[in-house]
């Protein structure tokens, strides 16, 4: 029971920190200062090999990156920049 209590408090503290932090800033210079190519090179290799831009057509990339935005928890700005990059070099 004690363990459960500690666990519960831990979760509440974590939630509070995250919500506070989310309230502070939704975007940051980190993503704003990076190019789509750089964001692709850094983010799209975190789970699998870097996806080759030539794999998909423009509209297919829109669908696949929307899918990956959710899987990888990317922000709107990051996924928009990555899609633009993929569409420009595929």
């Amino acid at each position, binding site marked *: 029971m004690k363990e459960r209590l500690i666990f519960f408090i831990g979760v509440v503290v974590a939630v509070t920190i995250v919500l506070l932090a989310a309230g502070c800033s939704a975007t940051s210079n980190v993503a704003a200062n990076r190019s789509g190519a750089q964001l692709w090179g850094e983010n799209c290799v975190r789970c*699998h090999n870097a*996806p*080759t831009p030539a794999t998909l057509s423009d509209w297919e990339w829109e669908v696949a990156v929307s899918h990956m935005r959710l899987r990888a*928890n990317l922000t709107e700005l990051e996924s928009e920049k990555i899609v633009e990059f993929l569409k420009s070099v595929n």
Partner: protein
Amino acid sequence: MKRILQYIFFIMLISASTVSFGQEEKSDEIKNLSDKISYIMPGNSKFLLRGYAHSGLEYVPDSKMTFVGGAFNPLFIYRQSDRLLFEAELETSFEEDKFDVGLEYANMSYIITKTMTLRLGKIFVPFGIFVDRLHPAWINKFPNTPLGFGHDGVLPGTDLGIEIRGGAYAGNLKYNYSFYVVNGPQLNTGEDHADDAGKLDYGIAFDNGFNKSFGTRIGLLPFSNSSLEVGFSAMIGNVGARGTEYEKVGSQLYAVDLTYVKTLNFMQSMLDVRAQASWVNVDDADYPVPDDPGQVYTFTNKSNTFFGQVSIRPAYVSAKFIKNLEFAVRYSDLNTPEGAMWETNTERWDYSLNYWIDWRTVIKFSYQSQSGGDHNEDAGEDAAGSGNAFFLHWAIGF
């Protein structure tokens, strides 16, 4: 002179008419092309059919050599608008002597804000990193799951529920989060298989009471290049069926995970490190002793499992053959409760030499060495129990 002027005028007339005729021809051509393009261009609702497939050859010295797998997992992605997405994946395979179909996941996501998405349906439980990020055969660097995962593991896979997830920045610190409510695991009381008493059963399509499981995963990416991610997961909920003596039995699951993916310039290589430690605690309960209905037994129901893997791929050297090679090693262990009928302390090392034909097609030459576990099912879906085994495994994502 008049003649000449008439002649020039005549020529101009002819050339003007041919130009305009040419223009008409061009604009017809453009119209034709744009008709053709709009004929094949999707509307606002866009649909992608992707997925993956895999199979392989397994060799267990002194025991068997057999082709295994034969799995094909179609993935359907519908992007209904900028905000609405539906994803569903089927799991089809050829097992024993029959064709098997399962629903891996099927859920709808609605993007609420730039940094927050609501997800409803059958989802991967975001507990640690293996299940929702690494398990597809073209992503997993090994032919099998680490100990503790898979259909007979001790950790959650998919479940029905609601999730809020997203990624955002706190200053320059990037983080991602997930909070969810799912039906949750159910306590196996040994009714069907006495040997399984005290285990948690996952992914059951209905809940056995009103108590849901609540969970969260918070991931922190301390470096601006996103190379490192450390995640903390927790899930809590009652697991006993309503109206039974097990109603109050609760479960608490925790995990810590790590991902580090980095280009090593001095080695012209890509380094990939991943690890996850998980703890599964279930409140004590009494289970009937098999073949002696009046008697009960109990044990401290705590399990833990760990995996750590490192892989290196010389992706930036010029030799084509070498740049497609990857070497991966993984350690995993599983410790289940002392006194349980499913007690085990198993350790496994997996080594794999992979050849990447493209970014999502791979051939894996793998070796596993396992000690401790005599329960085949404890070792995960594809494992070969205690001892050594060799695998030749191929996977393709599309």
